[in-house]
Every structure is written in C-alpha cells, then in structure tokens.
C-alpha cells in the first residue's frame, strides 16, 4: 500500500472523535491559548471550518480490542492500514518544513499488543527528535496496558501525552469497553502525572484526556465532577469532551440521532468555569443533574444567585467581576486597569469588550443600571430575553450560526 493510501485511511480514522485512538483530538488543535499555549497556530481551515494545526493521524487502525462505540473495533469490517515509524517521521518533517503544520498528533489503535503499539509510537517520536532533530510540537497517546517504562521513555520526547478516559463512570466502561478497565486508564495517567512532577522535560506541555458525551446515561454533573477531580488530583491541563457520533449499530449504546453538539458546548463552558473562573462543580450543579441547554452555565448560575447582583463595575473585585455573565477574564482585567484613571460608564464597557447583551442585567455603572426598567427583573424574564434572540438567530441561520458559535467558543471557551 502506498503512502497516499495510508494517509487517506489513517487520517480519516483520526478525523472523528470516536475511538480512544482518535477521539477529542480534532479539537486539541483548537485550544492552544493561555497556559496551554502549545500548538496554537492554525495552518489551514478545512471545508467545515475547523482549524488544522497538527498532522493528526493514527499509527494503525488495526485493533485487537472491541469497544462498542469505535469504528476501528476488531469486529468491524473496514479497510486497515499501518504506518512505519519512518513513514510518519518523513511525513511530519516534510509537512513541517513547508509550514503546513505545527507538529504531530500521533494516536493509534491497539495492534498485536499494547506494548507493540507503544513501542512503535516511541520509535516514531524517537526518530523525529533524534534523527531529524525535529523541534516542533508532538502529542502522543499513551496506550492502556502499555508498560510504564515505554510510556516513560516516550514522555521524555513528547510535549504532551494523553490517555483517554472515554467514559465518565466505571459502569459505562464495563458496558462499552469489555477489554478495558478503569485501572488500565488511571494507572498510566497517574504515572504520567507523577513523573511529570519529578522530572524536567517530561511531557512539558502537560497531560490531557478526553471523554465521549452522549453514548451513555452519565449526567453532566458526573462528567464535570470527574473533570474537577482530574484537574485537581492529576493536574491535567485539559479535559476534552466529544459529542458521540454514531458509527456502529450497537444495542449497548444510547440511541443517538445527531451528535449532542450543544451539550458538548455547554460542557466546555462549564469546564472553563471550573478551570479558569474558580467555580466548583458543586456550585454549578446545586439543583440539576444537567446543564441548562438554553443559557450558558454562567448565566444559569447568576440567575440562581440574583441576590449577589447587581455588581458595581467601578468597585467590584476581580473575583466578583469575572462571575458576571458577559464579563470575561480579559474585560475584567481591563476594567480594573482602566477604572484607575476614570470611572467607567456603559459606553466604556462596550469599548473594553464587555458583552452588554448579557451583562446589562447584572451590573451598575456608578449606581446606574443600563436601562431604568432593568432594576427588579425576575430570573425567568431575564432568561427569556437572553434566549429569545439567540433562538431567533438560530432559526434563521441554523447550522452555520450554530457551528460558528460552537467553534469560536471552542477556541476561547470563554463566556
């Protein structure tokens, strides 16, 4: 099989996020901002509008495992291919020097054995770093059940590693991945965290993981609580969520008509709130098991806590400001810097980048509200105003609006 055909098969296999091998990775490349600034430059945009920054491929799509949600599972009859380490290295170098990509995202199904697979990934990365002197970005998967020694060796050559959690509960894992155990995922994850803390130059851009959304009954509360745990305990840089796209007809999987993209979007927003805005999972899920699909989780939280509002923009602390819907980290910082020089009015806020559409319900400027009638609003009324417009827009522009909204927030995650 020639290299063109292999690239076609193993690139396509990495495009959807439905296997441990490939999942979540499509977004990985979109997130290079802030503390995880790693592979942040977009080198192209595909016909669906997503950014390409890494050569994202599977090493092989031949798998000895049989996970229910995965296109590459053993029991599927699909075309199979396997690269050699040399081929991947050549491809990466030649793409890199032409400035097509920032680096490599190398993932794999499990062929022959976990150790055989991990060894191949290691060899590829080794070739790139030592034979080709490649300094660009490398993200490589750690394969469940692979020997820790191999993972360790690979981690010294990679910028980022990830083991995918896939499903947010042990029960779901048992149901859909008969060959994997919680242990087989958490052990390497814990190991990478530990070595990363002890050694320099080990996975220097940190560790991430990914979860499939919508294939099982797990609630948003369960998912976000798990993420919170992963950030705290394993110091993960990012957790990625991927709406499940049905690829197999399997009775164990919940019937999914369309991938739950909006839910995925809300989870990213909630994730952002716990990671960057100091919210806790407990605060976000005081009442419900799932996030509100109609409004973003910060609005949802604010509507439940109207007693904490309105916030006076010219006096509030940074912590108070970033909890206001429509005020992000950037605008909060600008508010604080600028109000030293003169007190801010609503016009100034606009210039600073505050989204007044949302913020106007929750703030005052020098004691004044945005419009006089805004004082005494009921949560339901605010919600109605915030959702009506969005809904109308959505009806009008349908998918294109929807995608744009999702992808821009995927880039910043900011609310």
């Amino acid at each position: 099989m020639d290299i063109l055909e292999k690239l076609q098969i193993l690139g396509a296999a990495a495009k959807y996020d439905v296997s441990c091998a490939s999942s979540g990775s499509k977004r990985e490349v979109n997130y290079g901002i802030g503390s995880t600034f790693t592979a942040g430059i977009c080198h192209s945009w595909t016909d669906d509008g997503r950014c390409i920054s890494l050569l994202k491929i599977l090493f092989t799509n031949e798998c000895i495992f049989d996970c229910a949600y995965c296109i590459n599972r053993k029991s599927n009859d699909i075309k199979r291919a396997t690269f050699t380490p040399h081929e991947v290295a050549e491809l990466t170098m030649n793409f890199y020097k032409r400035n097509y990509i920032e680096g490599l995202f190398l993932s794999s199904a499990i062929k022959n054995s976990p150790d055989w697979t991990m060894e191949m990934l290691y060899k590829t990365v080794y070739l790139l770093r030592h034979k080709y002197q490649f300094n660009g970005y490398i993200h490589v998967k750690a394969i469940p059940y692979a020997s820790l020694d191999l993972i360790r060796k690979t981690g010294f050559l990679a910028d980022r590693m990830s083991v995918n959690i896939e499903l947010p509960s042990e029960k779901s894992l048992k149901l859909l991945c008969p060959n994997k155990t919680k242990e087989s995922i958490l052990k390497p994850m814990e190991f990478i965290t530990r070595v990363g803390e002890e050694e320099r130059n080990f996975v220097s851009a940190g560790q991430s993981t990914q979860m499939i959304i919508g294939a099982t009954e797990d609630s948003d509360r369960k998912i976000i609580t798990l993420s919170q745990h992963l950030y705290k305990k394993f110091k993960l840089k990012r957790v990625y969520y991927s709406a499940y796209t049905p690829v197999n007809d399997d009775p164990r999987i919940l019937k999914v008509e369309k991938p739950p993209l909006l839910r995925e979007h809300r989870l990213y927003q909630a994730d952002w709130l716990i990671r960057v805005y100091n919210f806790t999972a407990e605060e976000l899920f005081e009442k419900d098991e799932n996030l509100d699909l109609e409004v973003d989780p910060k609005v949802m939280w604010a509507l439940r806590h109207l007693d904490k509002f309105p916030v006076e923009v010219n006096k509030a602390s940074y912590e108070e400001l970033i909890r206001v819907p429509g005020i992000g980290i950037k605008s909060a910082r600008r508010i604080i810097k600028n109000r030293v020089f003169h007190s801010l009015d609503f016009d100034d806020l606009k210039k600073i980048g505050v989204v007044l559409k949302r913020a106007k319900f929750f703030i005052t400027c020098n004691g004044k509200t945005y419009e006089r009638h805004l004082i005494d609003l009921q949560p339901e009324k605010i919600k109605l105003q915030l959702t009506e417009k969005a809904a109308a827009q959505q009806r009008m522009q349908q998918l294109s609006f929807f995608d744009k909204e999702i992808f821009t927030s995927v880039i910043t995650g900011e609310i």
Partner: protein
Amino acid sequence: MYNVFLYDGTFDGLLTCIDEILSTHINEDEVVIVEKDKYQPMFFDKPIYVTLDKNRSQELRQKVINVSDKMIFKKIYYCFLSESQNKETYIYKYIKLVLKHGKKVKYLYHDDVVNFVEKASKNVSREIGKYMGLMRFNEIKGGVLYAQFEPTNDILVPISYFFRERLKSFKWIIHDKKRSKLSIYDTRMIKFLNGMNLNASFSDNENLYQKLWKLYFKTMAIEERKNLKLQRQNMPKKYWKYLIEKN
C-alpha cells in the same frame, strides 16, 4: 500652511525626521510627514528633507521605550508597516503623546491619534499572525525552501524573523511579490533585498508532498458539517493564491 517634512521611507528615517521635528517647536497641527518618493509638491510648500541618522533614531527609540515600554514601541513600528494613509503624521503625534503620558497613552482610547495607531498596528499584527500559519514553502532545486506572498502590509521583516526561529536549520527564501522584496536565510543570518524577482523550479520531492497535503486537507473535512462560509471567515480569499490546498 503646512510644514512638510520628507523622509527616506525607512523606519529609522522616519524616527530621525520625527526627532528633528520634536526639536523645532512647530505647532503639531501644522506638521505633515511624507515619504520622499511619494511626495507631490504643492505650489506653496517648502518641504524639508531630513536625512537618516541612525544615532538619532536610536536615541528616540530608546527615549520612547524608557517612558513607556517595548509593547508601545512595537505598536509604533507595526503602524509604520501598515498601508494606512498619513501614518507618518499620526506616528509623530502618537510619539508626542507617549512622551507626555508614558504608558498611560493606552487609556486614551477616545483619542483619534491613539485610535489610529491601535487600529493600524492591530491590522498588521493580525496579518502577521495569519501568515505565520498560512505561508507555504515549496522545496526548490537544491533543497532550499521558497515561499511567496502578497501581504497587504509590509510585513516581510517581522515574518522573516518568525521563520528564522521556526525553520532554523533550513535554508529559505521569502518573497513579497507585491513589493518585489526578498528575504534570504542561509541558516545563519537573514539578508533583505529590494527590487528582486525570482523564478524557481520545484525539487523532485515537491509534487509528492503537495499531493499528500492536498489529500490530507480533503480527508480532514467532515462532509456533513461543510461550512465554507466559516472557512472563508477564518481564511479569507486573499490568502488563497499561494495555498496549495486551495489550488
């Protein structure tokens, strides 16, 4: 009546010129700075040409950085690289503001001059950012990498410094076709050349990798989510001419 000052078109030349004006106490509203070659004499004008003096431009540069910071100086430089009309005169006025207010100039966002410089420099840095990803190098005979582009702003210099870091161990040439300017990097240093054009033929490998890249690009798109509008928003048509995947 305006006092027209001419400079040689280089950034250092402009700084020298501004330094000269600052020492004269002319009313700021009566100052106009124009590039020598673009100047069209008016009947009553008595233009003054200020020749480049590296020491003076260095001095002014240092002075600006001392009272503010490097970021503000970078803004001035980027504004200079832009194609905005009357940028020189605005830069002069902006430097005056910086010398008066220091770093706080950032908070004068109501001011026309500040606004102008902010906008122009943002436009330039956005274009640089795009080209960091969208520049395409082709391997030409001899293994040298060669990229062509036609940027709106004159960004060959900053973009070349970016690729010096990125492609440290490769020889490359970047060619601004619109302005007939080249930068050449030989794995040690960059040379900038004006008034140059180049015709190069591909190496033996080049066609294969272009084919692979096109294939990969097509493969990654999810058919059911096709959204060409979004693609164009992120990657406006003006960049397509030299993009292999779009040709």
